[in-house]
């Protein structure tokens, strides 16, 4: 079994600061692996270990995205590939999916792709489904449990808004992972020592037989607005009975009760 995990390097949310002109202050940003992708990595590793398989992690991003790939290697992935090209700076989710689909096709022997359900920076949730579309494979999104995975079939539980469903699919397939899928492992100390010497190949668009024109529209951020400030709280006065009465009244008025 050859599993690919798509890994996006994103800013740690607490490290993102907005400048007074609403641009993002890039200086203090701490790059991390997208939260949902860590669950995808862990699931791929667990099933590869059970099936004597192999895990390749792929990231589309700048050169420093190798930090995330190295973490995935230290967690246990076998190989990593960085896709970096000057023309990919503003690529949208669908364009990125097209590029990664070409990389997966180039690898050739891939049975299953694990992605996070969405990234914590753009939050579009489009990448996994678009990737499945470009590969022409079935997609199983919002997976919170994988019951069975063989070289030909997979059985999973999906968490939908108001439904939990158990689904079977034949391989190859694209999975998108939700938070409860597993408990991601820490990088192994022995592997940390090895991965700093492991080369990570960088593929460009031309390596994948693509051109920038073929990727569809790019995304330009027209405007960025900070969330409105939270209204200040209200302190109720009077004795406890009066306060409780007033509180209940306010909760009813606000349609909370």
């Amino acid at each position, binding site marked *: 079994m050859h599993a690919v995990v798509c890994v996006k390097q994103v800013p740690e949310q607490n490290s993102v600061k907005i400048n007074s002109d609403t641009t993002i202050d890039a200086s203090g940003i701490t790059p991390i692996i997208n939260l949902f992708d860590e669950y995808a990595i862990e699931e791929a590793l667990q099933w590869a270990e059970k099936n004597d398989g192999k895990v390749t992690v792929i990231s589309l991003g700048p050169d420093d995205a190798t930090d995330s790939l*190295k973490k995935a290697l230290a967690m246990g992935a076998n190989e990593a590939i960085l896709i970096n090209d000057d023309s990919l700076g503003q690529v949208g989710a669908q364009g990125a999916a097209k590029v990664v689909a070409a990389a997966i096709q180039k690898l050739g022997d891939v049975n299953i792709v694990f992605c996070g359900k969405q990234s914590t920076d753009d939050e579009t949730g489009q990448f996994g489904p678009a990737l499945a579309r470009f590969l022409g494979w079935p997609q199983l999104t919002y997976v919170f449990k994988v019951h069975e995975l063989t070289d030909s079939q997979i059985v999973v539980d999906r968490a939908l808004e108001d439904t939990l469903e158990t689904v079977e699919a034949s391989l190859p397939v694209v999975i998108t992972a939700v938070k409860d899928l597993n408990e991601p492992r*820490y990088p192994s*100390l022995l592997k*940390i020592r090895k991965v700093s010497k492991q080369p990570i190949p960088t593929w460009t668009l031309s390596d994948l037989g693509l051109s920038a024109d073929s990727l569809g529209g790019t995304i330009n951020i027209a405007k960025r607005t900070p969330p409105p400030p939270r209204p200040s709280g209200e302190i109720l006065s009077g004795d406890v009975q009066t306060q409780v009465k007033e509180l209940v009244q306010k909760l009813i008025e606000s349609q909370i009760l």
Partner: protein
Amino acid sequence: MIDWTANYGFFLNEQHDMLRKTVRDFAEKEVAPYIREWDRAGAHETGVAEHMLPIIKRMGELGFLGVCIPQRYGGAGFDYLALAVVCEELERVDTALRVVLSVHTGLNSLAVFQWGTEEQKQKFLKPQATGEKIAAYCLTEPNAGTDVAGMQSTAVREGDHYVLNGEKTWISLSDLADHFLVVAYTDKSKRQRGMTAFLVERTMDGVSTSPIHGKLGVRAGNTGSVVFNNVRVPVANRLGEEGEGFKIAMTALDNGRYTVASGATGLIQASLEASLRYAKERETFGKPIADHQLVKRMISHMVLNLETARMLCYRAGWLKNQGIRNTRETTLAKWHATVESFNAANDAIQIHGAYGFSDEYPVERYLRNSRGAIIYEGTRELQELLQADFALEDRVSKPLRCELPAYDEDFWNAE
């Protein structure tokens, strides 16, 4: 938030950075959410907090306990600087975690690595590096701390055994350890030259332990007494030769003090980070307290002491990597980092005002935890005297029969 660990590339490499992230992730996920409750429980209960054993086992599984031990002895094969990185990150969350590295890895395992026979390394070091067995270090006695020669424990040779008697106290992990590195007199008339070191196993008849109650700090950890009552220790468990016990104890302290200094550096960072967060949030006189000059002064002193402590620690670690004796450099780092960790925590409380006086915020725990390290593993006063003696050339480090091996990547990697 500034990354206070950045720009140390002249000592650290990418592997150290990944290691740091891993240890930080562990400490923040698996300890930070619970540490206030563990610390509170340690103040009231038996002194052997139930949480500690699973956490030590977890640190063993993750490879932290053998981080700088060669892979052939069950370790992760990092260098000695990595030990500092682990200690910094553990004590950044709580001192009790770093104490494990100090006694298990610094004082015991590295002493076995430095002085032990191949058989002893296989029997003791290997299971300690993986965390399968837990190790402690027994030097201090009820009437002998800094004055090591005042110890009363004795070991009398009887055929292929020694009969060990005595009481050791203020022993970290006393109630959890499987292995104890114990120093006792085999010939009291020779003073320091009459001391011998032994690797004692809890399973031996006559070993008993009990916790110490009512500690000021490190309440989440376990500290206690170990009593040896006619314990028959095989000669094969003697570490080094007869009469080498004092040297073994002191070289172990070169490694233990290094972990204490590194941990204290992490504690300064924790105090600084807590102070920066609070000083930006809290407003007085219509502006954040971070805008008041005397608050800025406390912050700037924390920065100065954090960076100087860190550099002193890394210099000591670099010397260990080169195989160069580092007693002077390590004691300087230990003196500076521990004293300044107390001052940083004290100022962090001041910045937090009355909130800092309550365990609603972590800074009062930092203060209580920092205080012990100004006493244990060499008091502040001992470090001061050592520095003067080195400067006056009244003290020199003479070559040893067994030096701590220099870091050799090929040897450390070989299985």
